[in-house]
């Protein structure tokens, strides 16, 4: 397949031109308008961004920040449980991660690992609120609908390839479970308007369907139907009589949609074009296949792609009981595909300009809900102060004091460790804490967006990072 090249030597975007384009777009969408008090956009170190989302709360001590290992022993005090997986070496001296992530361990020399991300204690630890915060940079509720970080990229940078939707969201079902409305609240372009919103592909294997003619309609019939639409349009009694902006704008959108549906890039959505060996190398299953899809989309010019292990209350990373067993399975789900994604992008020369960010809304702990002294209600599904059965074995409480983020490529350092958490409980960040605002500022800066970029909505500025105050963590950049 014909991959578009990501030219690292691509000249710096002409910001003036961008500004003019954004200004023109602003005329179309009442509401958000780029602030005239322009900020200097930093020079991008990445052109594309892939978020690997560990929805539900990925426990740092069970993944990228191993602590003292406590094997399962009936009757052992719960307080002794820090990690339920032993640590293994990686290919970087001084960085050890949890057993079960052996493949990722072999690409850690391409990674920047942050062990000191922190979240606010929102009083009641709710996945959807923290996910909203992580994805928009703003704690809900907000008086205007805040845009997802992907929508910021779509709005400020636009698509990298004009036919490719700029913001693609893989793996999350938005219907059918208890918090689906809450997920929809941030899986949106908010006040930017749906032009910048996500293209949702909840099932990677079915992604091809979303750019294909509808089910049951072959390509010939699809084309005939479009042709009929155009012929009827030409017969319209007022054709050419008036040049009408609203009508033209609607036709342009229909034309754009049709262009993607009949473009060569739409093959990027079709996983069946990969060999069985490649599909297998990414691990069967939704997350692995989602990573493979993300690779194909980025190769074909996608700007922002999020791939999730999927957040479903009490499933996957949302371990309220049986944590060890569940995480063992999750290790298998994520280990090979992530390593493969890094290697594949590198082999194609794309890793340097593609920023991969693995993150989660918070971490987990066996004992502490929230942070020490939080008033948050304990939400562990299994109680007791001793390991009485395997279902007690794991980290079942939500912890916001020290969370892992792993970044690959996109101008970040390689084989770099940033921040540190305490060796003993409470496992809070004790060095270089990184807030969500600063993490976002880092991601935005890498993508060439100033954290102070702001749009006017309802007469007020709304910034890319909270109040425009996020600061990129400079030590992470190569």
């Amino acid at each position, binding site marked *: 397949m014909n991959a578009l090249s990501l030219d690292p030597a691509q000249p*710096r975007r002409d910001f003036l031109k961008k500004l003019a384009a954004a200004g023109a777009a*602003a*005329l*179309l969408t*009442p509401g958000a308008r780029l*602030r005239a*008090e*322009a*900020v*200097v956009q*930093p020079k991008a170190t990445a052109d594309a961004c892939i978020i690997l989302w560990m929805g539900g709360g990925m426990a740092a001590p069970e993944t990228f920040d191993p602590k003292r290992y406590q094997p399962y022993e009936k009757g052992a005090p719960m307080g002794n449980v820090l990690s339920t997986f032993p640590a293994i070496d990686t290919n970087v001296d001084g960085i050890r991660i949890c057993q079960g992530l052996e493949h990722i361990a072999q690409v850690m020399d391409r990674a920047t690992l942050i062990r000191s991300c922190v979240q606010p*204690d929102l009083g*009641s*630890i*709710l996945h959807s*609120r923290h996910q909203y915060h992580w994805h928009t940079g703003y*704690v*809900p*509720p*907000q*008086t*205007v609908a805040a845009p997802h970080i992907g929508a910021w990229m779509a709005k400020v940078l636009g698509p990298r390839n004009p036919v490719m*939707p700029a913001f693609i969201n893989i793996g999350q079902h938005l*219907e059918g479970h208890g918090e689906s409305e809450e997920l929809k609240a941030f899986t949106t372009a908010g006040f930017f308007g*749906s*032009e910048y*919103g996500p293209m949702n592909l909840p099932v990677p294997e079915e992604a091809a*369907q979303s*750019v294909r003619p*509808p*089910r049951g309609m072959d390509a010939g*019939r699809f084309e*005939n*139907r479009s042709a009929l*639409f155009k*012929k*009827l*349009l030409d*017969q319209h009694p007022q054709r050419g009589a*008036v040049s009408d902006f*609203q*009508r033209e*704008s*609607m036709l342009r959108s229909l034309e*754009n*949609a*049709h262009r*993607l*549906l009949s473009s060569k890039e739409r093959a990027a959505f079709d996983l069946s074009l990969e060999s069985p060996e490649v599909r297998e190398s990414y691990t069967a299953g939704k997350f692995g296949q989602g990573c493979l899809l993300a690779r194909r989309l980025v190769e074909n010019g996608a700007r922002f792609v999020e791939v999730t292990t999927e957040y479903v209350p009490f499933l996957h990373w949302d371990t309220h009981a049986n944590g060890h067993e569940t995480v063992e399975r999750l290790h298998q789900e994520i280990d090979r595909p992530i390593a493969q994604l890094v290697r594949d992008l590198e082999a194609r020369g794309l890793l340097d300009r593609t920023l991969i960010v693995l993150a989660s809304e918070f971490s987990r702990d066996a004992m502490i809900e929230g942070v020490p002294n939080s008033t*948050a209600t304990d939400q562990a599904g299994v109680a007791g102060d001793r390991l009485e059965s395997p279902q007690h074995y794991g980290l079942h409480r939500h912890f916001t004091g020290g969370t892992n983020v792993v970044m690959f490529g996109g101008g970040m350092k390689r084989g770099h460790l940033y921040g540190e958490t305490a060796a003993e409980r409470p496992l809070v960040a004790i060095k270089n804490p990184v807030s969500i605002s600063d993490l976002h500022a880092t991601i935005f800066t890498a993508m060439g967006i*100033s954290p*102070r970029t702001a749009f*006017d909505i*309802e*007469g*007020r*500025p709304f910034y890319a990072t909270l109040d*425009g*105050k996020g600061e990129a963590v*400079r030590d992470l950049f190569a």
Partner: protein
Amino acid sequence: MQLSSFLSFRPWFFLSLVAALPSARAVDFAHDIVPILKKHCSECHTGEKKKGGFSMNTRGELLAGSENGKVIVEGRSAESLLYKVITTGDVDEQMPPKGDRLSAGEVEKLQMWIDAGVPWAEGFAFKPAAYEPPLAPRRPELPAAVEGRENPVDRLVDAYLAARQRPRPEALGDGAFYRRVHLDVVGLLPTPEQLSVFLADGAADKRARALAGLLGSAQDYAEHWLSFWNDLLRNDYAGTGYIDDGRRQISAWLYQALLKNMPYDQFVRELVAPPSAESEGFGRGIKWRGVVSAGQTVPIQFAQSMGQTFLGINLKCASCHDSFIDRWKLDEAYGLAAVFAEAPLEIHRCDKPTGRQAKAAWLFPELGTIDAALPKPERLKQLAALMTHPGNGRLTRTIVNRLWHRLMGRGLVDPVDSMQGEPWNSDLLDFLASDLVDHHYDLKHTIQLICSSQAYQSVAESLVEGGDRKYIYAGPRAKRLTAEQFTDAVWQITGTAPGKMDAPVARGGAAAVPGEELTGKWIWSNDQKGKAAEAGETVSFGRRIELTSLPQAAAVVVTCDNGFKLWVNQKEVGASDTWEKPVAVDLLPHLRVGKNEIVIAATNGGSGPNVAGLFVEGRLRWTDGPSQSLVSDATWLCRAGEAPAQGALPGDAAGWKLAAEVDDAAWRGLRDTLRNQLAEALRGGGPMVRAALLKSDFLMRALGRPNREQIVSTRPNDLTTLEAMDLNNGQILTTRLEEGAKVLLGRRAGQERAALVPWLYAFAYARPPLPGEVALAEEALGPEPTAERLQDLLWALLIQPEFQMVR
């Protein structure tokens, strides 16, 4: 590589230095600088005051300096007079001359601000805004009518155009008017039958009668304007907060209020000071679990919601600090919030406590005040009275402006939530507002007044570009169909509206209709003859009926102790989980000539064996023939367990047995309800379920139906590429048109073939097709139209801008 090496150092306006030196904390003009200048300098150097010839109203004036020359040297605090006078120890030179000196922190912030190049918020000025809208109502004198154009709207608009020597927009033709007024007033397309009657009518008052008829269709009107109000009152049938009582629906109250056309003053009073729990959801807002910022507590949400929805006042800025964009102050936002607060409310500035307590107050003290000492319900009553005070022209101006926007495509004040702005025609705005009061706050009167004007009945303005430079009225603007209008229109044309709804409302109110005699029997499986059914067991029932022609009306009412799901021809069309709530379904869209399958999965409840029963009563009516019954009895087939996939009845019915009648003693009390529901559903098929009564789905979301966590007063008017993709290959629309084409073919089976295309054009566009269009459509359909061909033609017609716009 260090970060700084890839940041551009090219100066860029006045923020360049800040951006280029990421190590310096960014200066936040709005939050850090304005309060310092206000506190220490504004008394003598802002507004009309210009001591020493120095004003800091705007950045320009600030930089222009004083009679002593420049006060600030951009980027150089050390050389700036301002920095010197705030730091000097010389009492003759120091500023401010009296009062507190600036703290070290404040001095540091100003220093950074000057060094950063004196960044300013665009458009911000310390002086009050040039335009302050009047509060009192006003009855402008109407200009004389010209050429018999008597409608007050026309008298005002004609004078406006004449004064500017602008032409009047052209008059709208009958068909386009009829389509527009239907969509605007009741949200539905006129049917081809209605259209042809209207077009054939030669009477001069036919438009007035059509309009009166639409306003008189209470249910259609209510079910259209429900979406407008759900958006404005952020009410929905699912969403954040509903599940844990952090938020309450007002659906039932709102529906009734619209159905009965509750006067707007009463409507507002019942939302502000709820007489019952039914209408309290709007004021309660959304209580989030966990900690929220001070600017989003429930009392603050109350202030924001009341301000935005009823008064077009944006208190969102003022919830955090004195607004920079209009005149509203932090204390005013908190005063309104304190009306609702259960406990003492401390004023927070930018999320930090100020140590001051808010005192319940109202935004326009010239109309009266609120006694903060009274208990909350009394305070709310006072607020409701002030809100609807005859002197509060802001309330009525806000709502008539919203109505003008919905009907005419652009507000008299625009955007509609910013009533602080200047109207393009204040006489018209003020007239409409006073006229609403003169007509007892009857919103339908205002709609009637606008829609009967020649201004409304003229051709839509043709825009050459988006957005307004300097707006001058040139006729109504085209509007995009809302998600609900689009959905309803597709259901209207294809006859595929769903059989059930999500909104917890009594549709159409309690209509008294003649009852049908019930002949059905309560049935269950034969297995435990005479014994109670197992708790939780599911039994599937099936029935085939053969039709030689389609009836003109067909409906069925079903209930089951305890719950059921109903499929007709393998499509799920109804369900209930409580036997007290029977469900009536219009069968017409789902029936076909030939064999039809009815399948019901019935489930018993309880914790031990108990009585279970299923009841079905249906009628199929032909205009010129007998009616046929479809009722549950011992001839139905049944088998234990869930229904087959998609409710398909196997051809040989192997493993199915005959059902058994059960004693109906337990359910006799339900007979009146069943009779009435069936009669209601049979009455012309019953009005179709409207999209406004359903939870949002992917298609509606794609077409702009908002998530109602925030108040939304206007929907996007542009179709985006992602939305266009959904229209191209989204599953919901595809399936709907696929089913719709089949239903449509079935319905039109006996009718003249050549009439189909004109019928479609009449329905979709309210006009006849041109010969070229007929030729294309006929070619697409082919000599023997198949469902597939019709489906594609429907698609090609329904995504045309002509369909998606109300022009």
